[in-house]
């Protein structure tokens, strides 16, 4: 029966495939009368068992193996894994090597955020079905977005050896560090990227945003003296402030039948990681110029509207461009590309800010440096329960919307999170059902 012909309480909405997300999944929403009875983000991309096949491999292989988990955020996997293994071995990568890692990560933030802002998320706000229609109407805007993204990719190629699945990162540092002259070649491109990123902030801040302001528990890293990217303590807006090594004492993963990705909770409750959490918990760590810009475009120090995450991503992209310029201008070639590394039986944990939120790794190795246990908690699996909560609240508050608009808004609600289902499992179908 067509929806219009049904009584309102039996309205059914189904979408075969949710596009513009990374990976394979589906959404099911069941509404009884005016009550949202069930919301499920089904993830049926097969589990990838990375944690299992890391066992028995050398610690030195871990950064390169885990980088294969994601083609969009391989640097995050390399950084969290290195940090965990370095913690186990008692190593601390500091100085220019640490700065180079942050620079590499800036490249990933630029390319990943730009892809999501322009090609996955922006069409929703402008009423386009995809980025093709956007490019037909606004080709110059899309060309400039591609230029911005390419600059991030080039930074990853320069430091990581290649842009997809970089191969230059190792436990203790890098296999090779760049010459000053090599990095300087990026300056002009990054200056242009900064201009495009600034345009992006002003443009996306002028979009129309649906109303939704859940009472989130935000979780992010807090990095000493800097907006968090590489490392730090894990903090929340509810008073949590713990070292990374204590992650598993506070955060728990559970298997739910409808998902191949584990659901994570903080003391039994859903929580949010990613740009919105980072921004709200670290606004004061942004440079003063970016704080002023955020206020100027109407964002302010706290933003609870998940649809406005597109503005936060744009600000973070601009931050990454500025941070990359700063690091390159201050760069001095280190004496050695890495610290000496001697394996030993030990356990260590690491956490860094992937574009989509905190990425936790823990490894245990034996005296020969062979991995005996591995644990990886990616941001999308941490956000799954929170995505379901957002959908529940949004659908409950907007049952009066016509079916096509409600469906689009549900998809958009999921895309607010830039979910990387491939990471979480190691596609998305939407189904909303109303019944009496």
């Amino acid at each position, binding site marked *: 029966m067509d929806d219009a012909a049904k009584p309102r309480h039996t309205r059914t909405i189904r979408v075969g495939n949710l596009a*513009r*997300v*990374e*990976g*394979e999944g589906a959404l099911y929403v069941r509404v009884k009368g005016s009550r949202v009875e069930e919301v499920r983000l089904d993830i049926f991309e*097969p589990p*990838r*068992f990375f944690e299992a096949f890391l066992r028995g491999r050398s610690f030195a292989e871990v950064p390169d193996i885990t980088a*294969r988990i994601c*083609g*969009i955020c391989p640097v995050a996997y390399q950084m969290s894994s290195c940090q965990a293994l370095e913690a186990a071995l008692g190593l601390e990568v500091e100085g220019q090597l640490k700065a180079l890692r942050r620079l590499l990560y800036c490249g990933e933030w630029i*390319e990943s955020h730009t*892809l999501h802002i322009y*090609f*996955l998320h922006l069409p929703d706000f402008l009423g386009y079905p*995809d*980025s*093709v229609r956007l*490019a*037909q109407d606004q*080709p110059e805007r*899309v*060309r400039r977005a*591609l230029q911005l*993204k*390419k600059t991030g*990719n080039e930074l990853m190629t320069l430091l990581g050896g290649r*842009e*997809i699945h970089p191969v230059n990162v190792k436990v203790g540092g890098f296999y090779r560090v760049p010459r000053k002259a090599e990095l300087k070649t990026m300056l002009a491109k990054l200056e242009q990227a900064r201009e495009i990123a600034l345009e992006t902030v002003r443009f996306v801040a002028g979009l129309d945003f649906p109303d939704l302001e859940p009472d989130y528990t935000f979780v992010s890293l807090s990095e000493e003296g800097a907006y968090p990217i590489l490392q730090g303590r894990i903090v929340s807006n509810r008073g949590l402030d713990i070292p990374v090594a204590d992650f598993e004492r506070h955060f728990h993963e559970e298997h739910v039948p409808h998902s191949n990705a584990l659901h994570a909770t903080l003391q039994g409750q859903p929580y949010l990681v990613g740009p919105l959490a980072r921004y709200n918990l670290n606004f004061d760590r942004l440079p003063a110029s970016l704080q002023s810009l955020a206020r100027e475009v109407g964002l302010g120090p706290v933003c609870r509207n998940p649809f406005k995450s597109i503005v936060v991503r744009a600000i973070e992209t601009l931050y990454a461009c500025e941070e990359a310029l700063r690091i390159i201008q201050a760069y001095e070639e280190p004496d050695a590309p890495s610290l000496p590394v001697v394996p030993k039986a030990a356990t260590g944990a690491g956490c860094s800010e992937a574009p989509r939120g905190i990425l936790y790794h823990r490894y245990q190795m034996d005296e020969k440096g062979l991995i005996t246990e591995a644990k990886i908690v990616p941001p999308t699996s941490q956000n799954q329960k929170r995505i379901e909560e957002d959908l529940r609240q949004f659908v409950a508050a907007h049952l009066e919307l016509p079916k096509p608009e409600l469906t689009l808004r549900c998809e958009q609600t999921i895309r607010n999170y830039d979910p990387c289902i*491939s990471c979480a499992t190691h596609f998305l179908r939407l189904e909303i059902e109303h019944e009496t």
Partner: protein
Amino acid sequence: MKPKVLTLGNPYRQDDAVGPWIAQRLRQAGLEVCEVGDDLTRLLDGLAGADEAWVVEAVVSGQPPGTLHVLEVGAAPLPAVFERLSSHTIHLNETLELARSLGVLPPRTLIYGIEGRLFGSGEEPSPEVRQAAEALIRSIQARQGHPGNAPVTDTGQRKG
């Protein structure tokens, strides 16, 4: 000018690896190949400036594994088979139409889609896919110096 060969796919997802698998062998044979991987926005850069482009990708349409689909990008978008199974953030159709909107779609663009079966974790494409890939490699090698003369393979399952 030689046609530009571009390959798509993730080298660690079994039959999705057919693009990178072909790229590696063509490169070993001394041919220039642009590997796009699984971030299809990079395909736009790869297509820009080429007079003729040959794009190699794994597809799933329900045909037997190893079936070779050969399609020329015309005035209309490609059939939906090239959007159905993409583990990429934007799919091949969308990328080609983006290229058209941005004015970088080469005058002639051919898509070589090899039907896949397995898309789990693993580096080697399945035997049927490898067999089709080897035939396509021989054909590309034989025809690479002849723009306008796209490879026709001997798999006997060509679609156009």
